[in-house]
């Protein structure tokens, strides 16, 4: 899951845009396997108290939000869809706000 633990919703959405089909498929498979356990673990403490490795895990799971839309929903249309998404600029995400 190297290269997917990115801080900021814009960075995560852009990573999806720039990734290959194979990269997304590998990341999706790996992240889906650990998602429930990862969130259970992270939910044990408030977000503001997460340490560096927990923050990395959080960011990894947040990248799954974007990648899953490509893998589950867009499938073969993902390359064309990425062109269309570039016009919708994320200007604020709750994940980027202080908690």
């Amino acid at each position, binding site marked *: 899951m190297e290269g997917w633990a990115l801080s900021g919703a814009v960075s995560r959405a852009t990573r999806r845009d720039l990734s290959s089909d194979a990269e997304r498929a590998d990341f999706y498979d790996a992240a889906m396997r650990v998602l429930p356990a990862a969130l259970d673990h992270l939910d044990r403490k408030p977000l503001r108290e997460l340490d560096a490795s927990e923050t990395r895990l959080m960011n990894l799971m947040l990248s799954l939000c974007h990648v*899953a839309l490509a893998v589950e929903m867009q499938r073969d249309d993902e390359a064309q869809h990425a062109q269309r998404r570039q016009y919708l600029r994320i200007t604020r995400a709750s994940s980027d706000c202080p908690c």
Partner: protein
Amino acid sequence: MHSHSGTKAFVADDAALFGTDPVPAAPYHQPEYFALEREAIFRRTWLQIGHIAELAEPGSFIVRPIEVANASILIVHGPDGKIRAFHNVCTHRGTELVAEQGGKRSSFSCPYHMWTFGYDGRLRSAPDFERFYIDKSRCDLVQVAVEACAGLIFVNLDHSPAQSLREFLGPIARQLESLPVACATTFSEYVYEIDANWKLTYDNFQENYHLRFIHPRSGEAATGPENPFGYPVKFGFVGPHRTQTIWSNPAAAPKPLQGFAFGKLARFAMAEGFGNPAQNKEYFAIFPNFFLLGSATQPFSHVVMPISASRSRGVVRLYWGSADDTATRRFAREYAMATVRDIHAEDRAVIEAGQRGLSSGALRHIHFQSQEVLCRHLYHTVNEMVQSYIAGGGAPGQAA
């Protein structure tokens, strides 16, 4: 001005009440018609422009452009607790006063000659003012009418609005106050610009006829064998505003992460008291250019701000009742934002294609079927106001 004779909900077969004739194409591309809309509508109607969550602390301010009116609006939360709005224009020689989009300040100084205004718009100080030929008390910032409902901030550029915001919203005001947006303290947002008329853009989001063609994958749960076009369960008309009750396919199987994330969002919504399934399906089209979905799992708003006859800006927000506190809440909200953005990304190109065709002037008329009745209602409402403005002696660029 429109009256609210009560919400009338009915199936699309009754939509002929608004007529069945073809609709003129010119209002969707002609600069002359756009100039009339500016005067007849956008300079005298309540416009949704922000949310109280952006002005949580006394001293906070936001600045918002309203290009259709060539205006920039400064909205300030004063230390006295009052929200005020002003034209973002120094009263000395008209310089734009504040360049930032938002922040926190106790006063606003013009960069040109340092005229300084307070939170209440009063001119507090101006260098060498003794050399002017006017009293300081006559140099306050120009105030703009501002009111809020359900946390949503609206402004009206009319010096003396014909209706209060609540009168304008009618019975919809109470409905909005029961939605998650009324309790929001934060939001996610994305913005797009589009080479298309504001009505053409807005219409795309108030008809479902296109769903199966433009959203064949992301819209899977919105169509089904019993409703192949995903038409709404019902429409409602409240003065100049519209509502629709969204239909969704109960047999649709969610994708794995889709099911996981929306399951979490639904549980959060229930815990916050927003689990009413009927409310979750209500989609409000507030005249002239504002949408709000009642859903607590994807509580998004959408403003289509006109820029020119063939250019607009969309601002989409998902309103949340609290800052992210747990990992699961943060995860589910990120998924909700990415999902709506994916769907809206699919609409933009086809709307622009529509504008290219209309702007060519090839068509004199366009056609709305019964399930596009909300588009027809918007056209009629706009045109009624434009014709009323002309009948009152108004012309483009001139106050009637």
